[in-house]
């Protein structure tokens, strides 16, 4: 079994992993930057190591410091958290070469899925529908040819990209002429690789993803889907399960084909297959080969502990349940509470009590750092059905009091309380519709 884990991440996820370690009787060492010294993950871990100054490039992306910390504190495994190096195949490889267990997929799997073109090919092989798209675009001429074949609008993507970066929507040929070289330069800059491809662009799709666990030997279970359609600039704001727009037939095809993909890959650990849904069809988008921020909604309906599962799988203990033992019960909804500015938090009342879970990493007197993402807390509610869950989330949001920094709590109340959200009939453009005008300053 794993005895001591280095946690190479930060924020509420780092604390989440510390808590899972304590529940499993595993020791935890948090590797943190100078800016994160006074956070709850550091406070509650068995040990902590400062690995560098605030900028991620010198701390959370500093492979040598992280590995030194892991080895010198005698860890036998490493959890990469989310973001930062969690989807870096070379990092996973370096961890394993240093003799540590990497709590995540095999480096080869990460590498394959990190290349969007190769990932699409694997998806097609597993029987997943993909948006009509191009091969790798060698030059502007081939880009023009593919665009007219697919029909405008199209979206240009970097083969090595992800998370909204390096994407560019093209609505007519003149935009392609200026946009294609620009997108290539961006891709080179961000990802060190200027390979591009192109897909048919969906105007206002839903974003739905399937959560999976694989034991690395071909055993795979899915834990249903999450609907993450409420986004702002491609950043998720709310996530719910089950999705209000999937019917049983679509859910079954979507989950079964996702299981097939992971089985083909002999996938190891937790992972998510992301889809776009529009007009009664769904299209494979990408695989997130790691834990996701929104994993708690799946935990509430499945009763399973995804981080504990990750650790057990890494320790070669397999998955706790077979597919026929997985029961998804009721409805869960998560709201991300973001700071709209950095600073010291003077008051921080979060909801508690029945049917509500709160994940955070700060407590009054601590500081939301300007160096990282703006997530302050996640509020997750469990209910028997969607309407009850929405009322419960409004109750929970009503209990939040944050002083010291501005937050998006009022925006979240606007969204969750809107008849549009309650109807379940909206696309990824919901935020712009509800909050776009008045709250653009945020």
């Amino acid at each position, binding site marked *: 079994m794993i005895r001591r884990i280095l946690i190479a991440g930060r924020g509420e996820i780092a604390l989440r992993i510390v808590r899972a370690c304590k529940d499993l009787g595993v020791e935890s060492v948090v590797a943190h930057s*100078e800016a994160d*010294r*006074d956070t709850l993950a*550091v*406070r509650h871990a068995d040990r902590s*190591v*400062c*690995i*560098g*100054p605030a900028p991620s490039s010198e*701390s959370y992306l500093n492979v*040598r*410091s992280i*590995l*030194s*910390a892991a*080895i*010198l*504190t005698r860890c036998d495994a490493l959890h990469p958290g989310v973001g930062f190096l969690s989807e870096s195949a070379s990092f996973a490889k370096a961890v394993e070469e*240093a003799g540590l267990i990497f709590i995540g997929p095999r480096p080869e799997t990460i590498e394959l899925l990190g290349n969007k073109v190769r990932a699409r090919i694997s998806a097609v092989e597993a029987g997943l529908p993909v948006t009509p798209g191009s091969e790798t675009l060698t030059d502007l001429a081939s880009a023009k040819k593919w665009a007219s074949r697919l029909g405008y609008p199209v979206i240009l993507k970097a083969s090595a990209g992800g998370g909204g970066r390096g994407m560019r929507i093209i609505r007519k040929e003149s935009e392609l002429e200026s946009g294609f070289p620009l997108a290539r330069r961006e891709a080179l800059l961000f990802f060190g690789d200027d390979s591009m491809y192109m897909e048919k662009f969906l105007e206002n799709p839903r974003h739905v993803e399937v959560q999976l666990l694989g034991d690395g030997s071909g055993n795979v279970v899915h834990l249903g889907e999450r609907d993450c359609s409420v986004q702002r600039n491609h950043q998720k704001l709310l996530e719910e399960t089950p999705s209000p727009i999937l019917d049983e037939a679509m859910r079954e095809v979507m989950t079964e084909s996702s299981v097939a993909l992971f089985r083909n890959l002999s996938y190891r650990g937790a992972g998510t297959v992301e889809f776009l849904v529009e007009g009664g069809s769904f299209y494979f988008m990408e695989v997130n080969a790691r834990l996701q921020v929104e994993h708690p909604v799946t935990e509430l309906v499945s009763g399973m502990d995804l981080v504990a599962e990750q650790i057990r799988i890494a320790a070669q203990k397999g998955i706790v349940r077979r597919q026929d033992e997985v029961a998804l019960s009721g409805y869960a909804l998560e709201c991300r509470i973001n700071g709209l500015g950095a600073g010291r938090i003077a008051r921080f009342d979060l909801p508690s009590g029945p049917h509500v879970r709160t994940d955070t990493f700060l407590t*009054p*007197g601590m500081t939301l750092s300007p160096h990282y993402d703006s997530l302050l807390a996640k509020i997750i509610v469990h209910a028997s059905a969607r309407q009850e869950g929405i009322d419960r989330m409004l109750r929970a949001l009503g209990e939040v009091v944050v002083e010291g920094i501005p937050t998006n709590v009022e925006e979240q109340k606007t969204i969750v309380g809107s008849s549009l959200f309650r109807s379940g009939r909206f696309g990824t453009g919901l935020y712009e519709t509800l909050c776009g005008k008045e709250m653009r300053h945020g």
Partner: protein
Amino acid sequence: MLYILKPAMKNLADMTVRQLLELFEASSLTELEVKTGEDSVRFARTGRENSVVPAPFPEPKKKADDLEVITSPIVGTFYLTPAPDAPPYVQVGSVVQKEETLCTIEAMKLMNNLEAEFSCEIVEILAKPEKLVEFGQPLFAVKRL
């Protein structure tokens, strides 16, 4: 918010410092300043809620204005000697010239020599040899020469 009132207040001059302090202790104030004529007294305290904030590193024992602290630029194992049997690079009282080696920090099987950025005298060695040092951890207290 600051309210400035201009009334006359009689019995302030009659209060002892002890009485004022008792008031202060029992209050939620962080600051209390009293002036009467040429006398003045000021009480202050810092937020009481920070007892659980972790102290980053133990402070160097001696603190003087002319001491500087050299910290670790990386995570690694701290060595005072270039090899197990070799004599230490420095010890307390050593005078080190700019760019001379102070210690070795081993990270990922690479030996990194830490050089002095300025000439100095070693006043205290703050980290334990052969132990992990974190980023930013104080290694030496020195007097700049």
